[in-house]
């Protein structure tokens, strides 16, 4: 294999259960429960998942939740806004560490 990611792997996801089926089943049940309609709709959860997929930069999740979002009735305007939410939080998370930098600098500065 000349690359680390293979889009065919998404369909092979259940193979992860091979050596630890019980834990895989726990995960799958939990996952399905989380993504089912609850206080949030399936469409809203898919948009959250799409944003998180970008935050964790998972190409499988981006492929999957792009499709799921479209199949839930979302549009590219909403999906792009969701990506920006991920970017904003990631950016803010980096930026808040600037205070750590300032404290570290203060410690060693006259």
């Amino acid at each position, binding site marked *: 294999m000349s690359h680390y990611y293979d889009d065919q792997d998404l369909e092979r996801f259940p193979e992860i259960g091979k050596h630890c089926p019980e834990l895989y089943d726990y995960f799958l049940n939990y996952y399905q429960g989380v993504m089912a309609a609850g206080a949030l709709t*399936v*469409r809203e959860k898919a948009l959250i998942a799409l944003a998180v997929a970008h935050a964790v930069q998972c190409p499988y999740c981006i492929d999957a939740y792009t499709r799921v979002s479209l199949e839930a009735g979302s549009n590219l305007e909403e999906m792009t806004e969701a990506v920006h939410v991920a970017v904003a939080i990631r950016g803010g998370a980096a930026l808040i560490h600037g205070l750590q930098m300032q404290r570290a600098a203060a410690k060693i500065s006259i």
Partner: protein
Amino acid sequence: MATVAPFARQLEHVGYRELKAIQVQTLQVNLGWRCNQSCKHCHLAAGPDRPEMMAPDLVEEVLLVAGRWSLPEVDLTGGAPELHPRFEYLVGRLHGLGVRILSRCNLTVLLEPGKEHLPRFFRDHGVELICSLPYFQEEMVDRVRGPGAFQKSLEALHRLNRLGYGQPGSDLKLNLMFNPAGAYFPPEQGGLQALFRRELERRHQVRFHRLYTLLNMPIGRFRHYLQQSRNYEGYMGKLAASFNPETVAGLMCRRLVSVAWDGRLYDCDFNQALGLPLKEGMPQYLQDFDLPALASRPINLGDHCYGCTAGAGSSCGGKLAAE
């Protein structure tokens, strides 16, 4: 479609050695493949240059069949059925017979020169409208249906709303038909209807009664798109993997007979597009229409039938099973 198990075999696995019609209530009449639009998903590849058009004597035959067999419902489709020169004559006569008339409207045709009076004509003849609108945003609609289609559709919807179509409590039924703008499945119908109702009202002050979701059939122009974009194998695989036995009881082919512009009979409009006629031994032409024979006829199946049984199912009347 060699990548999936034959549809007939899939049906056998769930107990249907043969799929038969149950009760024919609807004559679906395809008046012709001429259309003022050339939508990218059209299973008939309809468009302005298509010459296929039902002859006047066949229009008379439709009336004879509807009357003779007391068919409760006639579903008019195309192309754009309104472009047929005898469309209004046919609707007028069907109205006189007391038949429930459904007409599948692309909306933009109502703005074509000489067709502006149609909303009032529909109202006066109690025609129930099923109007194509794949989304509540311009970009997605125009991408599928052509530049300018969305704004024209909105104008047509406003005109229909002003006449009472689609208004809460109104008997003038205005239902919308959604289909995905790509190689993916339609959303859950109930949730999408709520979203459409909210957004069409908020953004455009448009009202409607019900929203039906329709999956794009892997035939005609949409099949060409799937092949060109290398989505065909994946789409067919997903259709077959999503086979839902609960949809089989409600399949539309079991309750209607489709008649093509040339008078040939089919199990559905999709079989018509593929040239897949009724099974041997069945009446093949409108002139031979025989309700008792057709009411329990065996359906001619193909792998495109996976398109009607995937997930919650798909039909000209929307989903077929619980979501």
